């Protein structure tokens, strides 16, 4: 029984913190709302730190680490709203590696920048693979992937789509089973769809018989890629929660009203404590997701969904609470609190949405129960 970080993991985390500290990412997040060119380009930092190869096996040029290690890096990114492509790149690299794809080494070396066109695996209620629709509650059919690897179909809100060099598209083959194909970005149509949070590059992507290279991966690996995305988004959100908490605590100690520091009032103190409670619950589920990703693959779907859902609730709460604690000034353009709020608003609706993750917790529990009864 040991849920502590290893020395290597602590080093990885501290190195990430150090690498990101060289940029004024939070300030840039505000400036980029009016002028996207103000965003720092972190790509070379990402490559130099070795993050692009984090999940690629050593024999294919990567570091051969686990989901949990990647989550530690994303947590640091989330703390400072760093505009990295990792949320789309890492799950893509995972599938490339599992498929033994030739691009792995180029990805690890930073010569290729793939991103995942994610598809949600079938659940206990729906049988098919689905992708994000551009608008509305209903989900869209995943792209069709032909035997020759060519892809037809579209998906909305694809992470890092505007800058990716390759798309690792998850879709279905002619039999309706899960399949994946690697498509060069030049073969796809990409419409920039960045919204509300300037640090998060998004795009609507469509393929019209775009040539691609089939990946030799099974449904379990395709599903794992989806859940990996959930876990990484959860980790990134957890990092953002921590910054909100730190800001709130600091201000609650310094700001006085009616002759007392506002943190001495129960309404403030208990609201901040609730942020801590939610943060620590999410952190516990981060361990669950990390452990399941490594040692208990049959629970990874449950664990990653629970983590994403919990971290999402924590971020929703923490980002609003941070503004509340700061009062009116926390809702002004020049303040940092709204930048974390913007991040929370967008995160909640990406990659299926937090609601879908919560729904999947129930689905996984029902499925486990049905499996146990069978």
């Amino acid at each position, binding site marked *: 029984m040991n849920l502590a970080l290893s020395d290597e993991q602590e080093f990885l985390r501290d190195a990430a913190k150090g690498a990101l500290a060289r940029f004024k990412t939070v300030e840039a997040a505000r400036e980029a*709302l*009016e002028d996207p060119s103000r965003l720092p380009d972190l790509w070379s930092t990402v490559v130099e730190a070795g993050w692009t190869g984090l999940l690629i096996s050593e024999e294919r040029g990567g570091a051969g680490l686990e989901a949990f290690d990647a989550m530690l890096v994303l947590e640091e990114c989330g703390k400072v709203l760093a505009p990295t492509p990792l949320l789309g790149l890492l799950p893509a690299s995972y599938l490339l590696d599992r498929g033994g794809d030739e691009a792995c080494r180029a990805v690890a070396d930073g010569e290729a920048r793939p991103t995942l066109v994610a598809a949600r695996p079938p659940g206990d209620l729906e049988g098919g693979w689905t992708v*994000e*629709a*551009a*608008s*509305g*509650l*209903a989900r869209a059919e995943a792209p069709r992937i032909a035997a020759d690897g060519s892809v037809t179909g579209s998906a*909305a*809100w694809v992470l890092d789509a505007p800058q990716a060099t390759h798309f690792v598209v998850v879709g279905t083959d002619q039999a309706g089973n899960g399949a994946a194909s690697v498509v060069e970005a030049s073969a796809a149509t990409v419409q920039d*769809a960045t*919204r*509300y949070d300037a640090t998060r590059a*998004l795009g609507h992507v469509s393929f019209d018989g775009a040539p691609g290279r089939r990946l030799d991966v099974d449904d379990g690996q395709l599903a794992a890629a989806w859940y990996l995305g959930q876990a990484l988004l959860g980790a990134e959100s957890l990092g953002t929660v921590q910054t909100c908490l730190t800001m709130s605590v600091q201000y609650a*100690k*310094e700001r*006085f*009203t*009616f*002759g*007392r*520091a506002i943190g001495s*009032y129960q*309404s*403030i103190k208990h609201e901040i404590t609730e942020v801590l409670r939610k943060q620590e619950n999410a952190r516990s589920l981060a361990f669950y997701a990390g452990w399941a990703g490594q040692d208990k693959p049959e629970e990874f779907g449950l664990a990653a969904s629970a983590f994403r859902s919990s971290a999402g609730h924590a971020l929703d709460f923490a980002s*609003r609470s941070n*503004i*509340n604690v700061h*009062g*009116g*000034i*926390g*809702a*002004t*353009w*020049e303040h940092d609190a*709204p930048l974390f*709020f*913007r991040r929370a*608003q*967008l995160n*909640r*609706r*990406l990659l299926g*949405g937090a*609601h879908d993750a919560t729904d999947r917790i129930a689905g996984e529990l029902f499925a486990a129960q049905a499996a146990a009864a069978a």
Partner: protein
Amino acid sequence: MDLNDTPEQAAFRTNVRSWLEDNKADAPAASGDSGDTAWIDSRRAWQDKLAEAGLAGLTWPKEFGGQGLGPIEQVIVNQEIASAHVPGILDVIGIGMLGPCIIAHGTDEQKSRYLGPMLHGDEVWCQLFSEPAAGSDLAAVQTRAIENEDGSYAITGQKVWTTNAQFSSYGLILARTSPDKHKHKGLTMFIVPMEGEGITIRGLRQISGEAEFNEVFFDDFVVPAENVVGGVDNGWGTALTVLMYERLTIGLGSEGFGYRSDRFAEAVGQDEAAKSDPEVRQRLGDLAAELLAVRFTSYRTLTALSKGQIPGPESGLAKVTTVNAAIAAGELIADVVGPEALDEDSEWAYMISFLPGLKSAGGTEAILRNTIGERVLGLPPEPRLDKGIPFSELRAKEKEAVSA
């Protein structure tokens, strides 16, 4: 129990409606950019027209240009203006809160000089109370007003959250004249012109990027003694009058932000999948019930007003309900629509960005709940550490505590 007009009210309503019918062609657009001078000027002209027709300052006494009517008539005018899809008066703050305060506390000279131009929109007014370190705890204002040898006052300090400051002619400012007295006892209210040497107005941008409010900086800004309203060191009492009228104005116009159950249901209902999703329906049902409740709470308030009762602090709960229900609506709509609802051009993105600021506007929820718990329910007060301490000492203590 009756939501209908009395025959007199019905007749009044008919008159208002037909006047609006005859004149609405002259009305400016109902919404616009507050930085657009032409639109603001058209709003002034429209206010003048409304005032001429007796549709502004309805509850002001006749001697000051008002109609001497009751809150019901005010609501009838509000309702008819809304139905006609025309804007109402521009200077809600002046006519609703500051004018009544001058009527109550001002000198005869002040009344005759300021009330007429205010009513007709020739001079718009703003309220200069809040400061960076005096929000919920309004009596903690630090802006100083120091008496000069000639009896005039030099005002120095920073005000914030000032609506309309950028096109106001005058403001009512709360400033500290006697820092060595207890914090409630050393304040004075002044009328200040909103231009001249020593005043700087700066737009304050909100989450959406729009400057909904202003910051106003005073630096040895000189006003004559005749501009004192309600007596030197008596400013807290004068401010309470403004706050009472603020409550009243809010009580009469609860749906002013457009946070209505039917509007949100329409937005959700545009998505067929959402319409039959039990979870979406549950969330919509809950927030719609809250907003419907607020509508009938305002009718209850109006009933009380028309019987001569003044709304108590519990009327602030309607604001809490409205803001939180609207936040829930924003979350729901964006959950249904997806990230597209967060496009900067979307009305929902604007609402989602606007609400966090509205939540603490006019005092935090915590302070409101304290006040209601104590004054309405009679619960015992929290220990007050600032009781009886001179303001200057209090400030010194705070500084010490933070640096410790």
